[in-house]
């Protein structure tokens, strides 16, 4: 578990360093984030197809949403 925290910390580090001073934006600064491509899941169907494949081929599922399922493939 400690290893995980290290990895996550390392991955987040550049963003924490650059963004910590002023987290967030004013309502009029949302032009970039409002783009459809900037949604965290910008292609829900593509994500659901991927999740379905990985759910049926690996022992893990979920994380970004509910754990998949609804299928006898695993």
């Amino acid at each position, binding site marked *: 578990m400690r290893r995980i925290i290290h990895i996550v910390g390392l991955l987040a580090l550049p963003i924490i360093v650059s963004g910590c001073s002023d987290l*967030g*934006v004013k*309502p009029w600064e949302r032009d970039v*984030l409002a783009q459809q491509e900037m949604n965290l899941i910008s292609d829900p169907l593509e994500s659901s*197809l991927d999740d379905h*494949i990985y759910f049926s081929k690996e022992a893990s599922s*979920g994380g970004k*949403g509910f754990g998949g399922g*609804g299928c006898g493939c695993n």
Partner: protein
Amino acid sequence: MAGKDLEVVAVAVTKKTHKNRELAQLLTAASCALISGLSQGVNAADSWDVDSAFLLYSESDGRVSAAEPVISATKNFDEETKLTFKIAADTLTGASPNGATASDHVQTFTSPSGKGSYNAAAGEQPLDDTFKDTRIALSTNWAAPINRDWAYGVGGYLSKEHDYQSLGLNGSLSRYLNQKNTTLTLGLNLSNDTVNPEGGVPTGLVQVPLSNSDSEFTQRSDSENKNLVDAVFGVTQVINRSTIMQFNYALSTSSGYLTDPYKILSVIDDNAGANFGGNFQSGGRDLYLYEKRPDSRLKQSIYWQTKHQFENDNILDVSYRYMFDDWGVNSHTIDAKYRFRFDNQYLEPQLRWYTQSKADFYHRYLNSSDYSSADFASADYRLGDLDTYTLGLKYGYKFADETEFYTRLSLYHQESSGDKGYGKLTTQELYPGLDAAMLIVGYKF
């Protein structure tokens, strides 16, 4: 009207479960019917967003291949109030590893229904080629604000295969903070699944009978249930004008029948002698046992995702997931996508790396000296030590009317590893890898 089309198509496809050729045609027809039905809706109301995609999945060496059309339609009442319907169908054919080890002689296996048998040649990975299935899944979701600071969502889904049904309900509640720069979300999902395997529910860790006239078959129940409860707690944070980050903690419990009724294990002879490391004999034939898993599982995961847009408009999307459960499985997943954006086109290379450690009860095979004392055992490679890699490239084109076409080709590679066995078994390939190709074509309008 579109709803009625959906029903007709769903019923028609379900009835054709066993006829795969006709099914492929039906699925194509179904997708077309859905698209045409729904586009009429688009013209009429002009406030529907339709998202459609088709997946082709194919494994090397004639193993599983799948086709999956999926379409979703979202009615936008206002910026935050929406109703979504989604229908997906998939059809699978091909051969799937049954769990037994390769052997120095031809092996014969009873088919899951007990009505026939299939063989694996000497030195070859035993694959059950009776494997085929069709699934239809329907889901719907409603999302709306409660007030300036709160929003909620509710949804339900239903999916049906000839040997599996799932019924689920979900809900979520979100709280916006800090001028909507921070969003806290709590989601809950409940599902009730029924497994009704071909040939009935086999008894775990009991010898696979020769045919369905055996008493093991006649005492079987037709179906078993499992219940799932998932909860997700998430924090989404706007970092700056071009960066957004999410952190989730998810808890998932399942209870009931979690075994794969079609998977078996080989029992290997560990008595010193000529057959050391060969298939153990029982009742004059090779001994195979049905697998058996615990009747509950608790999975937990943490998930982190960041999306960042650079000065040149290109977008980096990186995520990491750590999952662990009380079966002893630990996994790490890293997924990275980088989108090069041109005027109305984009090109997106994708990389995914996944590694998992085996479940406590995973055994590639059981030993003749101690198989009878096992409480649980599975040789399903998906519960073993496993590394997988996905390399993909996506291309998209946005038309002037804001519709979008995209296509993606991904290559998926699996590598299993583990205990190499002893005696005769060491000459067999116990952990064959797998390669698969996935092609997705999508259109949003």
